[in-house]
């Protein structure tokens, strides 16, 4: 098993005071807390910090840990000394709710498994629900519209026959219902970690995110699309084809439209009660005057008009 340098993880010196350790943890926790941080590795980093803090904040655990000295480097292969269990006895640490088995093998070998009651005695009874697992899956918008299945692989703690906890890889095939929106979570009851002492397993929470789409943007159930149109389609008002998640539809552009005009296709967004709408923003695309004929047409327009589109700007 790998040696963990708890001082390095919290970025403090080996002789740091308890106050320094507390401050370092709080500062890092604010930055890397998975509920706050946007860093991609926030969850793993935070887990490490929590474990390091769990040891270093407790003078008894810290002094036990300290006897390994500064010669050990993070990642080095580590075995505890043979007399470890006899000299030190820890009742298991952790003050967490529903996340037993969260600490590394290194921690558990030295200090036992964290099976805290935690949370000011507000945990349900003495029996502890298994670990809840949070995972996320990124899907294309089309799958959110039609519904889809996703195979996801998770590492979940599982109790061995001797009661010890091992991490196992579990593969699940999850149905994603049509009409799901980004940021929503699917709860899969009892698909989390195992419970202890006959208590129920934890749950699995699957957060849904959308892949960026080349032309649609989702806002809740509504879909936004920028639709390129020609100057004459916008000026004269024409019927044009518009893509929607459910297939192309015809859209009547009102005569006299300009770039930025917003049109709504009711009920063409993601499904639900009520279904979302699709908002279409017109973007007038001006063909270049690249040939003689086009140039002449533009010049005809120029001669026939004395419009100043910059009048409002005072020039």
């Amino acid at each position, binding site marked *: 098993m790998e040696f963990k340098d708890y001082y390095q993880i919290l970025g403090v010196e080996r002789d740091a005071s308890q106050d320094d350790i507390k401050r370092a943890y709080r500062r890092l926790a604010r930055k890397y807390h998975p509920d706050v941080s946007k860093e991609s590795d926030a969850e793993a980093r935070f887990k490490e910090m929590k474990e390091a803090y769990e040891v270093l904040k407790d003078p008894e655990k810290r002094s036990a840990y300290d006897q390994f000295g500064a010669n050990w480097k993070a990642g080095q292969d580590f075995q505890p000394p043979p007399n470890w269990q006899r000299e030190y006895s820890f009742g298991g640490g952790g003050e967490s*709710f529903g996340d037993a088995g969260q600490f590394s093998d290194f921690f558990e070998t030295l200090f036992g498994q964290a099976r805290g009651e935690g949370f000011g005695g507000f945990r*349900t009874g003495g029996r502890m*629900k298994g670990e*809840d697992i949070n995972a996320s899956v990124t899907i294309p918008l089309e799958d959110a519209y039609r519904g889809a299945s996703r195979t996801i692989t998770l590492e979940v703690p599982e109790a061995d026959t001797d009661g010890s906890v091992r991490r*196992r890889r579990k593969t699940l095939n999850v149905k994603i219902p049509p009409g799901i929106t980004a940021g*929503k979570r699917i709860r899969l009851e009892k698909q989390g970690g195992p419970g202890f002492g006959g208590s129920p397993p934890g749950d699995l929470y699957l957060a849904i995110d959308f892949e960026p789409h080349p032309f649609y943007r989702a806002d809740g159930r509504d879909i936004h699309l920028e639709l390129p149109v020609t100057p004459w389609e916008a000026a004269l008002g024409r019927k044009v084809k518009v893509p929607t998640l459910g297939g192309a539809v015809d859209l009547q552009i009102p005569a006299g439209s300009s770039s930025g005009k917003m049109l709504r296709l009711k009920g063409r967004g993601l499904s639900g009660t009520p279904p979302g709408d699709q908002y279409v923003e017109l973007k007038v695309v001006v063909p270049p005057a690249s040939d003689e004929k086009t140039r002449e047409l533009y010049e005809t327009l120029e001669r026939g008009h004395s419009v100043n589109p910059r009048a409002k700007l005072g020039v």
Partner: protein
Amino acid sequence: MAERTLAGLRGIVLDEQVTFTLGELSHACGVRTELVVEMVDHGVIEPATSTDEWQFYGDSIVRAQRALRLVQDLELNWPGAALVLDLLDELDRLQKR
């Protein structure tokens, strides 16, 4: 590590289409109901209905669990956690624009 595959699992989408009772919400969070009542009192989560028996929308589970983690890991109190969650929601909304 051993592998096994479970096929075709159907979960519940935690949105406004589903509601949970106080007991169900507490169970989902792994805490006693008193703690959920405290969260409601501090405005961390809000019941969907104002009837005698509380019902909570699905996203309350997510919000309550986030609040519990914040309170525990960052040593916040309930009003602090509620403020953080509100600001994070606002940040999310702005970034989506």
